[in-house]
């Protein structure tokens, strides 16, 4: 019971009229459980407002999708399903580590708690890194919201400059954290080392995410290497993800025309893609190309198919039909709004998770005081939950 006396003494120092209160228990609460339940109720109320807030965005999505389902299906082809699926997996894993972190806090496994929080933060960074590749890609192609929409099929595009601008804050923070870590190491400051070390890794993970995104984009570039060469005459060499852009474009807009060039028989448009697919089944790029070609054929089944110019002409007319500020631009307004606000929530989550990381290094949490970890966990799970709905709604339309 000697330990209890130490604690009581500490509590006394803070507040002398509640001798039996532990230091973490606010004086207006009777027991830690009451404190925990009150905090949790408050957090659930906040989550209710979050759900209602996002429901406005989902409502806009539903109205516009009901109005023009063809626009959504056509524009969804611009979104890289692979990157979306990878990001879903990353967020699900971060949810696992977050739920595990709550368990660690309850069991007072302090080292493991810090590790789990760092893992959650790292996943958030990877998510943002992949997102940065997706965004910079689309900015470069002119796939911008509403009035800024300026996509021209086959035009040269380069999203590198946007990627640099998006990544700059992360690079600066990474540099700062690394310097802090080195200074803490030199000064033998264990506490600062335990914070700046994991945080440096967290921000390195952003660049790992950028690398992963680049790799997946260029992976699909190799997929239609042939197609890409034909598709864009203005194919200027440069960064790897630039090649990805060309491939992406080939997989969406120019795919049918490209395939026609490879095989002179215009009738066998789909067969040639199927042949390519049969040669290499692991070739996801070609599979995307196939789906894009099928999509274009579906579109060409519309009113424009009466035009005598053959399938290729019909296809280009059909894709031009939605390729304007009002239709495709409208889709991208909704896309950026939904994913952008989600990304802002990820950033906010990273902020509070960093706060938790510092407190976990300070050993603030114990089996009677793990509320903050639990509440941030609830927030993190609701952000994951929104992505669970966003992913099929935006990326998996056909």
């Amino acid at each position, binding site marked *: *019971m000697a*330990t*209890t006396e130490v*604690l009581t003494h500490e509590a006394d120092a803070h507040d002398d009229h509640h001798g*039996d209160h*532990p230091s*973490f228990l606010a004086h207006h609460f*009777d*027991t*830690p*459980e009451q404190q*925990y*339940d009150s905090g*949790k*109720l408050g957090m*659930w*109320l906040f*989550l*209710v407002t979050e*759900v*209602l807030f996002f*429901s406005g965005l*989902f*409502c806009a999505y*539903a*109205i516009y999708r*009901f*109005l*023009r389902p063809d626009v959504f299906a056509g524009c969804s082809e611009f979104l890289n*399903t692979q990157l979306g*699926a990878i990001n*879903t*997996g990353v967020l*699900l894993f971060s*949810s*696992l580590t977050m*739920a595990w972190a*709550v*368990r660690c806090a309850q*069991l*007072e496994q302090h080292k493991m708690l810090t590790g789990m929080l760092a893992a959650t933060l790292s996943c958030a960074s990877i998510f943002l890194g992949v997102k940065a590749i997706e965004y910079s890609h689309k900015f470069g192609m002119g796939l911008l919201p509403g009035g800024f929409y300026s996509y021209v099929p086959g035009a040269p595009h380069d999203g590198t400059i946007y990627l640099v601008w998006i990544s700059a804050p992360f690079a600066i923070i990474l540099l700062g954290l690394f310097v802090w870590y080195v200074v803490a190491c030199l000064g033998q400051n264990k506490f600062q080392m335990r914070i700046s070390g994991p945080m440096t890794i967290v921000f390195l993970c952003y660049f790992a995410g950028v690398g992963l995104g680049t790799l997946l984009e260029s992976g699909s570039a190799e997929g239609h290497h042939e197609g890409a060469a034909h598709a864009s005459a203005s194919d200027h060499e440069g960064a790897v993800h630039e090649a990805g852009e060309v491939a992406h474009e080939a997989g969406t807009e120019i795919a049918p025309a490209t395939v026609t060039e490879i095989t002179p028989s215009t009738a066998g448009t789909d067969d040639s893609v199927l042949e390519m697919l049969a040669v290499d089944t692991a070739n996801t790029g070609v599979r995307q190309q196939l*789906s894009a070609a099928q999509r274009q054929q579906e579109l060409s089944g519309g009113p424009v198919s009466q035009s005598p110019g053959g399938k290729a002409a019909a296809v280009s007319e059909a894709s031009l039909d939605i390729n*304007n500020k*009002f239709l495709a631009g409208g889709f991208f307004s909704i896309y950026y709004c939904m994913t952008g606000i989600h990304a802002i929530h990820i950033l906010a989550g990273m902020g509070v998770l960093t706060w938790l990381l510092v407190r976990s290094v300070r*050993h603030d949490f*114990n*089996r*009677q*005081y*793990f509320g903050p970890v*639990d509440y941030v*966990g*609830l927030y993190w799970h*609701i952000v994951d939950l929104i992505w*669970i*709905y966003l*992913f*099929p709604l935006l990326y*998996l339309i*056909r």
Partner: protein
Amino acid sequence: MAHTNSAHAHGEGRPGYDFAHPFPVWGLLAVFFALVFLTIVTVAQASFDFGSYEVLISMIIATIKACLVVFFFMHLAFDKPYNAVLFLGSLLFVTLFLAFTLMDSQTTREMFEPTITDVATP
């Protein structure tokens, strides 16, 4: 460390002091792998053509995933029922919001759609 040990020694066994119920690791992993499996299923179903049922199927899968996250990762299954009432109540209002707005947009569809197409065509 003395501080940490004292924290849980304090008031041990008293009502209101022993309320932490850690979720077992196997449970966390089971939920995670179920979520990953359902993600693979939802990506796979997108490559088949289910026509108008496609949205319905992907939304049902997403809702199963959401339930797994809410009930197990967010502990709502073992939580105070009042929190569950709050959260499910918000979903009720979201349903009302979406249903009424969509009903309205269906009735005004005819006067809305040509306007967009007119403006869109250069």
